[in-house]
């Protein structure tokens, strides 16, 4: 209501003027009627009316919202003050923009990844179930589930509403004439998976129970991404066929675009059972699946899991000789998705939080310095009756304006940086759901207000404090007020430096880990090696003979290729991630009890692989051309294998029995080679190499070419691909990567976090240096007369230099001690992100401390030097 009044207050004022005039005339007329003289009548009328101006003012105030005018006045005043020192204002706004922008960005990502509920029906009731071995051998205790276990759980327990299984899978998709083959990632999902999650297909339908059988009708569900990309979003594809791994398969449906679970790279879904051979579908000792379960209303996850866990123990007892877990563990689905990024995200959020705090402290510092120069003004206004609250509000408006400007800039900054982060953070789950929305804006506004309060309240209160009158009395010579102000600034500076130290130490640790990963010795040649993966379709290549013929002719062609100095075949190259493992026993040694089950990575390799990759032969020999086809019961083992299972004894000539899906087979050990690492964040696992020239289709048809080249390995990628297509024109080749790229890929996410924290730490260091410089300059200016006096009575300039410098280093040293103490605790949280170093690494601590002291000395040197150059006569005269 008063808004209309407010907008029309000029007009209503002029109307009021008219009304007042009317009143005066009426009253005058009345008075004249009572017999007064005209002058007397007018005078009496005016006297009766009183102060017309006051009436107008009170109506004006009544028509203007009080708060609004107060704010308007404060803003006007603050803008004028800020405009008087534009450099300061811009600097301050930029500092705040950095802090607020970075914090908002990280919050946006944390919200999307960790906080926002999953886009499924009733997502709070979804949990993931994992197997847990009581003899936990590394990892976090959550292990993938065997299909046999899942099927028993589902059919024999009733504590969950339902449970569904899925697994990662691969596949080659091509047209019905086998055209345009493409290697893509896929997944297997049980028939009830989509209804359990509450996902409806955009077109068509999901799997039926009849299709979700090992020998069910071959059907496929497309994800939105391949539907758009490969099929141009044409729904008529439903009901038509495509070839998956050369099997004609009917497309039955398309999933919605938002369904990118478990990650966005999945291109199509197959019925879960069809991703297994009929024998494997009921196995209890092959673990690869993820199980998602929906809780019954009112039943806790613990209680429901207990029933499943009890069943699992029975399965374990019934399969005592096999690796079958005893227990079942659960965790909420949302935590499960974010398990790998949770710590890095929280660490980064902590880092930007620290940076924001430092920025606030810095702004506080700058404002305190400014308020010192305005002390007299404030004192005069206070003495004239300006209320303290009004004065505080006025100064708060200033910091609020700076923070608002910073927030606006920060929002722009965070828009850019959020999308950059989401796009460049490798394997960030739910990256597609990262966007700025109302909540993020609210968060940012809250940040702005909090920062303004934090940065503005201290200087405002301190400058309007009880010493108002002393401010009036204070002459330039007395240092009383200045000293307490300086102490305040020193305290804040100490806090700022302590925070910086924490950031610096964390960044050093993370960066050291990253460097460690980058320089990890893979145990093989890294330079000038290109790798390239292919998988022979098992329909055409169904005998050992055909597979071996392909492998041998490919190797022969590659070795003749100009620019290739050596070529070999291996199932999975070093550093490229985990490959399958198998349990085994050693004939010459007593059989292991279940808990000490022997287990090793299984790789297949050709005879020359070891020499091409420079994997050293330690004992015995590697394969020759004779270990091929049926003559394949020979293996080569790695050093860790020998150390772990032969306690370093000579393994050559010994025999191992390996449990394949079908039946155990006995292999003779030919030799021992050096270790290679498959995941640079983990130590080298025990490894068994089987001859790839055995040609057994399901063990050797997928292989990776490793070629040692004389020129830049990437330039050899096309010539090698041409050799493959000369042999098999429709065979797709994928993952053409140099060893350097493989290394970079696995260390990238660590490097990413390390670089970001390092950037935050560098910024904080800069801010701390600015703060230190500011405080010291201020102190020096305050003490100019004092220093002048000292020089006049004969103090040495070097003495003065030391005096001022040490005074400046005091907050730095105290801050350093606090910072180190806090870091000792804070870095424990980083433990899971550290490789090749530990939370209390003395090198990192010493390095960060040295760096900080060096910067502190540099920041202090300029004012100290200036103090020592003070002209005593000038200084004493300035009073």
């Amino acid at each position, binding site marked *: *209501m*008063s808004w209309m*009044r407010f907008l029309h207050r000029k007009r*209503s004022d002029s*109307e*009021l003027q*008219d*009304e*007042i005039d*009317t*009143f005066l*005339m*009426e*009253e005058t*007329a*009345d008075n004249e009627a009572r017999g007064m003289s005209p002058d007397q009548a007018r005078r009496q009328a005016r006297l*009766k*009316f*009183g*102060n*017309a101006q*006051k*009436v107008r003012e*009170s*109506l004006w105030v*009544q*028509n203007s919202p009080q708060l609004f005018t107060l704010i308007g006045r404060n803003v006007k005043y603050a803008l004028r003050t800020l405009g008087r020192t534009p450099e300061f204002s811009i600097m301050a706004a930029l500092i705040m923009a950095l802090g607020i922008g970075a914090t908002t960005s990280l919050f946006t990502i944390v919200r999307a990844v960790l906080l926002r509920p999953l886009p499924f029906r009733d997502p709070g009731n979804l949990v993931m179930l994992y197997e847990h071995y009581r003899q936990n051998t590394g990892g976090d205790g959550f292990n993938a589930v065997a299909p046999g276990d899942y099927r028993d759980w589902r059919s024999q327990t009733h504590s969950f509403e339902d449970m569904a299984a899925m697994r990662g899978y691969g596949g080659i998709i091509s047209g019905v004439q086998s055209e345009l083959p493409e290697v893509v990632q896929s997944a297997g999902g049980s028939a009830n998976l989509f209804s359990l999650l509450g996902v409806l297909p955009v077109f068509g339908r999901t799997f039926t129970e009849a299709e979700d059988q090992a020998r069910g009708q071959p059907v496929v569900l497309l994800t939105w991404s391949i539907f758009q990309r490969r099929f141009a979003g044409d729904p008529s594809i439903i009901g038509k066929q495509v070839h998956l791994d050369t099997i004609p398969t009917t497309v039955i449906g398309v999933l919605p675009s938002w369904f990118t679970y478990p990650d966005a790279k999945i291109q199509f879904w197959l019925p879960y059972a069809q991703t297994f051979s009929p024998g494997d579908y009921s196995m209890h000792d092959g673990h690869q699946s993820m199980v998602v379960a929906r809780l019954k209303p009112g039943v806790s996850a613990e209680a429901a899991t207990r029933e499943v866990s009890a069943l699992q123990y029975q399965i374990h007892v019934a399969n005592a000789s096999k690796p079958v877990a005893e227990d079942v563990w659960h965790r909420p689905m949302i935590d499960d998705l974010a398990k790998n990024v949770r710590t890095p995200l929280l660490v980064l959020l902590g880092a930007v939080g620290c940076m924001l705090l430092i920025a606030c402290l810095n702004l506080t510092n700058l404002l305190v310095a400014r308020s010192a120069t305005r002390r007299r003004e404030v004192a005069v206004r206070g003495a004239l009756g300006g209320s303290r609250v009004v004065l505080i509000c006025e100064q708060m408006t200033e910091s609020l304006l700076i923070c608002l400007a910073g927030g606006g800039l920060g929002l722009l900054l965070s828009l850019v940086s959020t999308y950059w982060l989401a796009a460049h953070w490798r394997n960030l789950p739910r990256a597609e759901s990262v966007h700025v929305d109302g909540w993020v804006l609210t968060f940012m506004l809250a940040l702005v207000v909090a920062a303004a309060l934090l940065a503005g309240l201290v200087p405002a209160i301190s400058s309007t404090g009880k010493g108002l009158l002393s401010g009036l009395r204070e002459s330039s010579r007395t240092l009383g007020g200045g000293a307490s102000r300086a102490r305040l600034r020193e305290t804040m500076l100490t806090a700022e430096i302590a925070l910086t130290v924490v950031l610096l130490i964390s960044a050093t640790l993370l960066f050291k880990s990253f460097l460690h990963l980058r320089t990890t010795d893979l145990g093989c040649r890294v330079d000038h090696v290109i790798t390239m993966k292919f998988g022979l379709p098992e329909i055409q290549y169904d005998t050992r003979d055909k597979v071996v013929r392909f492998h041998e002719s490919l190797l022969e062609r590659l070795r003749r290729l100009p620019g290739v100095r050596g070529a070999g075949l291996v199932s999975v190259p070093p550093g490229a991630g985990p490959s399958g493992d198998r349990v085994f026993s050693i004939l010459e040694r007593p059989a292991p009890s279940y808990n000490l089950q022997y287990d090793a990575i299984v790789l297949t390799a050709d005879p020359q692989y070891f020499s091409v990759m420079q994997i050293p032969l330690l004992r015995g020999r590697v394969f020759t051309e004779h270990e091929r086809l049926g003559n394949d019961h020979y293996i080569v083992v790695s050093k860790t294998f020998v150390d772990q299972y032969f306690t370093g004894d000579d393994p050559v000539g010994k025999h191992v029995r390996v449990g394949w899906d079908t039946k155990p087979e006995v292999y003779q050990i030919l030799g021992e080679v050096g270790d290679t690492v498959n995941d640079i964040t983990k130590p080298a696992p025990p490894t068994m190499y089987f001859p790839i020239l055995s040609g057994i289709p399901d063990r050797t048809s997928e292989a990776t070419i490793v070629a040692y080249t004389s020129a830049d390995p990437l330039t050899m990628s096309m010539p090698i691909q041409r050799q493959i297509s000369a042999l098999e024109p429709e065979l797709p080749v994928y993952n053409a990567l140099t060893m350097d790229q493989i290394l970079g890929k696995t260390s990238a996410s660590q490097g990413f976090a390390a670089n970001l924290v390092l950037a935050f730490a560098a910024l904080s260091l800069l801010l701390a240096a600015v703060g230190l410089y500011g405080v010291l300059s201020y102190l020096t200016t305050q003490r100019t007369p004092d220093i002048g006096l000292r020089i006049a009575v004969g103090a040495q300039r070097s003495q003065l230099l030391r005096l001022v410098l040490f005074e400046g280093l005091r907050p730095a040293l105290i801050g350093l001690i606090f910072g180190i103490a806090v870091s000792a605790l804070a870095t424990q949280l980083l433990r899971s992100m550290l490789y090749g170093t530990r939370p209390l690494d003395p090198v990192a601590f010493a390095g960060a401390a040295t760096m900080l002291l060096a910067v502190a000395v540099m920041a202090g040197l300029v004012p100290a030097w200036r103090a020592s150059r003070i002209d005593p006569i000038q200084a004493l005269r300035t009073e």
Partner: protein
Amino acid sequence: MRKSSEPQNEMVKGTLDMMVLRTLIGGDAHGHTIAKVIERSSEEILEVEQGSLYPALHRLEDRKWVSSYWGASENNRKAKYYRLTAEGCKQLVRETSRWRQMTRAIGLVMGEEGGAQ
């Protein structure tokens, strides 16, 4: 007898609005008339301060309890007339009954039989 320094002619807070509304029952009026009527009917005990009368009139108009129009005064001058609206009548009834309760209550406390009258 004009009575400026006597305390009882200070308006009880919040009653001005009520009295203005009451005055307007007798017909539309402009500010001067309203003030005069209030003073006269209080037997010159109450003095209307112009400093609060005009803001009060504008406030009542904001709340839609009175409407206004420009007309000619008794002396044929341009004057802003105020008229009681239906909403204003209801408000007057509410205010009056509250006022009665109030004075009765105060009367009871002051020991007057059956409240003040």
